[in-house]
C-alpha cells in the first residue's frame, strides 16, 4: 500500500498551488519602489582589445542615470574559480582574473564590457546603443586543438598555450595502463565529441541590487541555486562588501540545472550600481543574452580506448580529453572535467587499470561549467559508447559484456582504480530489472513491426554509476577545493508546536518544501502541514552550500535529520522533568514522549509549549526554547547507479530518429517521495535525449554563436519525447548517511545519452548498414549523412 504521508509517500507538492495560480514570486516579478534598470553592452566580437569606450553620449541620453565600464571595477577583485587543479607536473592551474566587466580585452561574443543604468529598460538599451566603444579585433580562438597548437594566439595574454591545466588521474597508474594496452588481445578506440549544451532553465537569469544608505546594508535578489555561495563570493572576493551587510535572496527560481550555481558579474554590477545611485537596480536577461552569457555545459573532445581479453574481460581503460572551459573560469569549471569526470571512469565495472588525461583549454567562447550531471555524463557517455563498440568489434552481446564486467555485490565497499570508494550497489539487479521492464524479449517482434512500416528499430542500453553529494570537505580540500561541502539546517519549533526548518539547500523545482517536510513529519510524528521549509534567504537560514550535484537530501537532508535528532534529545530532557522520570526512560514515538513501560506521556506540542513557557522546566540545567542547528559533512560521496534502455526507430529515408521507448531501472537507495523522484528522472532523461538527438551549441570560425535562440538551438519539445518507464525498486541504501539516500536529480541526464546513441547504432547495424559512431546530436541530417557516407 502506498503511504499517504511522511517518508516514502508521494505527497503532493505544496509549492504547486502558488505556481498553478500565478502567485509564484520569481526575481523578475519583484518590483521595488524607485527601481532602475540595467542593460549590458556585450561584445559582438569573439576577441578584441578594447581601445576606448566613450560614455558621454550614452550618459546624455534621456533617462540614463549611470554608465559603468570595466575601469570602474579595475580595483576590485575577480570572480574566482572554486577549485585549484594541479597539472600532472605538479604546477598549479592558470587562473586569469574574471572581472565584473571586461577590461582591456573582450574574450567572447556576449562578454559584457559596459552597463547602462536608466529609468526604464528601453532607455537603458538605448544608452547601450549610444556607447562609443572602439575595438581592435583579434583572431578568434574557437577550436581547442588549434588553441593548444598555436601558442602565440592567446585568450589571456599571460597564458601561452591556452591550457588551464594538464591533469592526469591517476598519474601513478599511467605506466601500468600503457603496459596493459601493449599486451592486450584487443583494443577498441573511439574518438568522440561530447556536445556543448546550454542549460536553458526556462527562467532567464535576473538580479536586483538594493542598497540602503540608512543602514549601509545591501540586498541582492537573484536567480541562484546557492545564495550563500554568491554572498561569500561577492563579499570575500569581488566587491568586498562585508558578509554581514549583504543579504542574498533567491526567491522562486525557475530551474537551474547548474547554470545558476555560479556567481555572475551582473550580480556584482547591480549591487555596485545600487550603491552609486541609492536606488534599486534591476536586470533581467532576455533569452539571447542567456545563450550568450550563461555558463554552458559539456564540450569535451575525447579519445577513449578499452583493452579487453577476447572473451570480453576488461583489462584497462584510458582516455585523453580536451575540455573547453571557455574564456574565463566559472566557479566550478575546473573541477567538472577533472574530479567529477576522471574519477568516474571506472563506471560500474571492475576494470583493473584506468588512466585519465584532461587538458582544459581556454577559448573565445562563453564560460563552460557544470550542467546537470557535470562530468559524470561525459564519463558515462565515453565509457558506455566504447563498451558498446567493443562488443560489436568482438561479436559479443552488449548486455552480456556489461554484466560480465560488473563489480559484484560481494565486492563492496569497492575501491576503484580512479580512487573512489563505492559503498554499495547491485548493478546486476538493475540490469535484470531493465530486461524485464523494457520487454527485451519482445524486441524482435517490435522490430519486425517497425520494418513493416519501413522503419529501422534499434535497442540500446547503458549501465552506469555516478557520484553525488560531493564530499567530505577534508578530502575535497586536499584535492584543491576552496570551499567546504557540508550543509546546514535549523529546526525551529515554535511555542505552539509547529515548525520552521531553515535549510541551506535551495529548491528551484526539486520540491524541497514538500519532501523535507515529509522527512521531519515522519521523524517528529506531526503533520506535514505543520512544517514549513524555509530556503533561499541568507538572512533567514544558518548557512548552506545550495543545491547542485544531487546533494540536497543526501547532505542538507542529513543536516536536517541531525538537527531533528537534537530536538528530540532536548525534548526528552524536558519530558523527563515534566514526567518526573529518568531521561533514559523517555521514549519518543509517534509524536509523544512517554515513560517506558507506563502510560505517562507528553505530546510534542506540550513539550514545545513548555520549552517556551518554562514554568515547569529544568531551567538550572537546560536552556529554554526549542531550536537546533546542525551542520553535516558527509563521510563519502553517494553512488546512485542504474541501467537504462532506449528503443528507437530510424527513418532510413530522412535519418530522423524517433524515441519509441525509454526505460530506467535506478538504484537511488531509499526514496523519500517516489512521485518527485520519478519526475526528476523524467526531466533528466529528457535532457539526455535532448543531448543525444537534438541539442547543440555551435560557434563559427570567427567565434559567433550560431545557436543563440530557440530558432537554432533545439529544445526538446513534447512531441520529441515518449512516455518513460521509470523504476527505483532495486534499492541498496547509502551506508553512510542517516536517510540512506543517494540522490536522483542528475541520473537521468547521466545515463540516457549513450543508451540513445547505442540504440541508433544498433538500428543501423541490424539493418545491414553499420556505422561505427555518430557524434551527438544525432540529428536527421547527421544520421542520414552517416548512413550514406
Amino acid at each position: 500500500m502506498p503511504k499517504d504521508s511522511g517518508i516514502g509517500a508521494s505527497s503532493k507538492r505544496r509549492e504547486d498551488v502558488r505556481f498553478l495560480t500565478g502567485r509564484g514570486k520569481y526575481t523578475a516579478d519583484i518590483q521595488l519602489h524607485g527601481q532602475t534598470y540595467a542593460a549590458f553592452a556585450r561584445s559582438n566580437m569573439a576577441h578584441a582589445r578594447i581601445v576606448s569606450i566613450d560614455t558621454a553620449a550614452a550618459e546624455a541620453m534621456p533617462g540614463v542615470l549611470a554608465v559603468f565600464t570595466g575601469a570602474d571595477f579595475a580595483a576590485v577583485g575577480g570572480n574566482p574559480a572554486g577549485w585549484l587543479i594541479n597539472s600532472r607536473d605538479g604546477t598549479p592551474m592558470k587562473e586569469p582574473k574574471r572581472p565584473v566587466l571586461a577590461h582591456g580585452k573582450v574574450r567572447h561574443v556576449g562578454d559584457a564590457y559596459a552597463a547602462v543604468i536608466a529609468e526604464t529598460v528601453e532607455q537603458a538599451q538605448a544608452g547601450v546603443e549610444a556607447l562609443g566603444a572602439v575595438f581592435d579585433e583579434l583572431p578568434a580562438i574557437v577550436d581547442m586543438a588549434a588553441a593548444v597548437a598555436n601558442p602565440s594566439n592567446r585568450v589571456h595574454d599571460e597564458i601561452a598555450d591556452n591550457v588551464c591545466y594538464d591533469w592526469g588521474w591517476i598519474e601513478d597508474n599511467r605506466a601500468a595502463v600503457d603496459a596493459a594496452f601493449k599486451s592486450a588481445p584487443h583494443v577498441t578506440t573511439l574518438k568522440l565529441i561530447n556536445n556543448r549544451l546550454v542549460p536553458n532553465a526556462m527562467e532567464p537569469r535576473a538580479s536586483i541590487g538594493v542598497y540602503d544608505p540608512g543602514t549601509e546594508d545591501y540586498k541582492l535578489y537573484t536567480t541562484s541555486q546557492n545564495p550563500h555561495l554568491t554572498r561569500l563570493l561577492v563579499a570575500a572576493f569581488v566587491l568586498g562588501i562585508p558578509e554581514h551587510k549583504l543579504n542574498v535572496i533567491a526567491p522562486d527560481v525557475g530551474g537551474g540545472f547548474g547554470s545558476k550555481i555560479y556567481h555572475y558579474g551582473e550580480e556584482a554590477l547591480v549591487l555596485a550600481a545600487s550603491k552609486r545611485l541609492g536606488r534599486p537596480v534591476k536586470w533581467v536577461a532576455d533569452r539571447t543574452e542567456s545563450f550568450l552569457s550563461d555558463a554552458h555545459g559539456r564540450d569535451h573532445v575525447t579519445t577513449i580506448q578499452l583493452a579487453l581479453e577476447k572473451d570480453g574481460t576488461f583489462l584497462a581503460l584510458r582516455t585523453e580529453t580536451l575540455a573547453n572551459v571557455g574564456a574565463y573560469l566559472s566557479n566550478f569549471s575546473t573541477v567538472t572535467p577533472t574530479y567529477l569526470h576522471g574519477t568516474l571512469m571506472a563506471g560500474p565495472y571492475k576494470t583493473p587499470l584506468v588512466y585519465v588525461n584532461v587538458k582544459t583549454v581556454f577559448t573565445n567562447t562563453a564560460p563552460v561549467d557544470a550542467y546537470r550531471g557535470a562530468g559524470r555524463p561525459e564519463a558515462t557517455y565515453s565509457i558506455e559508447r566504447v563498451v558498446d563498440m567493443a562488443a560489436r568489434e568482438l561479436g559479443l552481446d552488449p548486455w552480456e559484456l556489461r554484466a560480465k564486467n560488473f563489480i559484484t555485490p560481494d565486492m563492496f565497499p569497492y575501491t576503484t582504480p580512479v580512487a573512489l570508494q563505492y559503498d554499495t550497489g547491485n548493478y546486476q539487479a538493475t540490469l535484470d530489472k531493465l530486461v524485464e521492464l523494457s520487454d527485451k524479449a519482445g524486441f524482435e517482434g517490435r522490430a519486425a513491426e517497425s520494418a513493416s512500416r519501413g522503419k529501422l528499430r534499434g535497442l540500446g542500453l547503458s549501465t552506469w554509476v555516478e557520484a553525488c553529494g560531493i564530499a567530505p570537505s577534508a578530502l575535497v580540500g586536499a584535492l584543491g577545493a576552496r570551499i567546504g561541502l557540508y550543509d546546514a539546517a535549523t529546526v525551529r519549533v515554535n511555542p505552539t508546536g509547529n515548525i520552521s526548518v531553515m535549510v541551506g539547500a535551495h529548491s528551484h523545482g526539486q520540491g524541497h518544501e514538500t519532501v523535507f517536510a515529509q522527512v521531519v513529519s515522519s521523524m517528529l510524528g506531526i503533520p506535514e502541514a505543520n512544517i514549513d521549509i524555509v530556503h533561499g534567504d541568507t538572512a533567514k537560514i544558518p548557512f548552506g552550500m545550495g543545491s547542485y550535484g544531487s546533494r540536497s537530501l543526501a547532505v542538507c537532508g542529513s543536516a536536517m535529520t541531525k538537527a531533528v535528532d537534537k530536538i528530540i534529545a532536548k525534548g526528552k530532557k524536558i519530558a523527563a522533568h515534566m514526567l518526573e522520570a529518568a531521561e533514559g526512560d523517555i521514549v519518543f514515538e509517534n509524536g509523544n514522549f512517554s515513560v517506558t513501560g507506563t502510560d505517562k506521556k507528553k505530546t510534542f506540542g506540550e513539550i514545545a509549549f513548555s520549552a517556551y513557557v518554562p514554568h515547569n522546566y529544568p531551567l538550572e540545567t537546560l536552556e529554554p526554547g526549542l531550536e537546533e542547528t546542525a551542520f553535516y559533512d558527509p563521510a563519502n560521496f553517494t553512488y546512485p547507479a542504474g541501467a537504462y534502455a532506449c528503443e528507437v526507430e530510424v527513418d532510413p529515408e530522412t535519418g530522423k530518429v524517433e524515441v519509441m521507448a525509454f526505460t530506467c531501472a535506478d538504484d537511488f537507495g531509499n526514496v523519500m517521495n517516489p512521485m518527485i523522484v520519478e519526475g526528476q528522472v523524467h526531466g533528466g532523461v529528457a535532457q539526455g535525449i535532448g543531448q543525444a538527438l537534438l541539442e547543440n551549441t555551435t560557434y563559427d570560425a570567427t567565434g559567433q554563436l550560431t545557436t543563440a535562440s530557440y530558432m537554432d538551438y533545439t529544445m526538446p519539445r513534447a512531441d520529441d519525447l515518449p512516455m518513460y518507464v521509470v523504476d527505483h525498486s532495486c534499492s541498496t541504501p547509502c551506508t553512510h548517511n542517516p536517510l540512506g539516500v543517494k540522490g536522483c536529480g542528475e541520473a537521468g541526464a547521466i545515463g540516457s545519452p549513450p543508451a540513445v546513441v547505442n540504440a541508433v547504432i544498433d538500428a543501423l547495424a541490424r539493418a545491414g548498414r553499420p556505422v561505427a559512431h555518430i557524434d551527438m546530436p544525432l540529428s536527421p541530417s547527421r544520421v542520414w549523412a552517416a548512413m550514406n557516407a
Partner: protein
Amino acid sequence: MYAFEIERPSTIAAAASALAHDGAQALSGGQTLIPSLKARLASPEVLISLTGIGEMQGVCIADDGSLCIGGATTHATVTRDAATKFPALAHLASMIGDPAVRNRGTVGGSLANNDPSACYPAAALGTGATIVTNTRKIAADDYFQGMFSTALHEGEIITEVRFPVPHKANYQKFVQPASRFALVGVFVAKYAGGVRVAVTGASDSGVFRWTAAETALSANFAASALDGLTVDPDGMIADLHGTPEYRAHLIKVMTKRAVAAA
C-alpha cells in the same frame, strides 16, 4: 524595441492611406515581425495593424471554384474553414508554428514576408494562386522573387489570396527541429491541366517549382514516377540543420510522400 505608434484601421482604404506614409509598416499578425522588432532589427515609425479589417477576413469559394482567403485570415481559421473545401491547404495551415502562433499569424503576413522556410509560399506557388492586393492581382509565378523578396510594392496590401482547388493535393513538411519551420516542405497539386510541385525551405532563392517532377507526375501521378529524378544540390541552403545535399535528397523524399498521400 525602438518606439513606434500603432494604428488599427478598419478598412482596406484606410490601411492603404496609412501605409502610404514614410516609416509606416504593415503588421499582419506579427508572429515574425514582433520577434524581429524585439531584436531591434527594424525601426518603423508606425505599425498599421491589418487584423482589424473585416473585409480581409475569412474563407470562401469564388465563382470560378477557387478558394479565397482574406489576407488577414489566421492560420487557425484556415485550418478550420478550409478543411472540407481544400483539405491539403487546411492541413498545411495546421502545421505552421504552434497553436498560439496560428491564432495570430495570417496568410497575408506570411506571403508578404516570404520567409524561405515558410509553408504558405509552397501552397501559393504549388497551386498557382493569385495574390490579390489593394491595387492589382499577381500570379504566384510572378510574385515570389527570392527569399524575403516579392513583387509587392512599398505599402501594397495583400487583401486576398485565391487558391485554385486541385483534384488531389498534399503538403509534406520535414521540420527544422529547432524553429519548426520547414527544412524542406513540398506542396504537390494535381489539376486537369497537369501537376504542380512547389518546394519551400530548401533553396537559397526561396520557394521554387520542381519542374522535372511536375513533368513526370503530369504523365504519371505516382511516387514511382520520380524514381529516376534527382535534385541538384547547387543553390540549396547550407546551415546547421542540413547540407545542400541533404535538402536535395529530402525534396525527392517529401515529394514522393506527398504524391503517395495526395
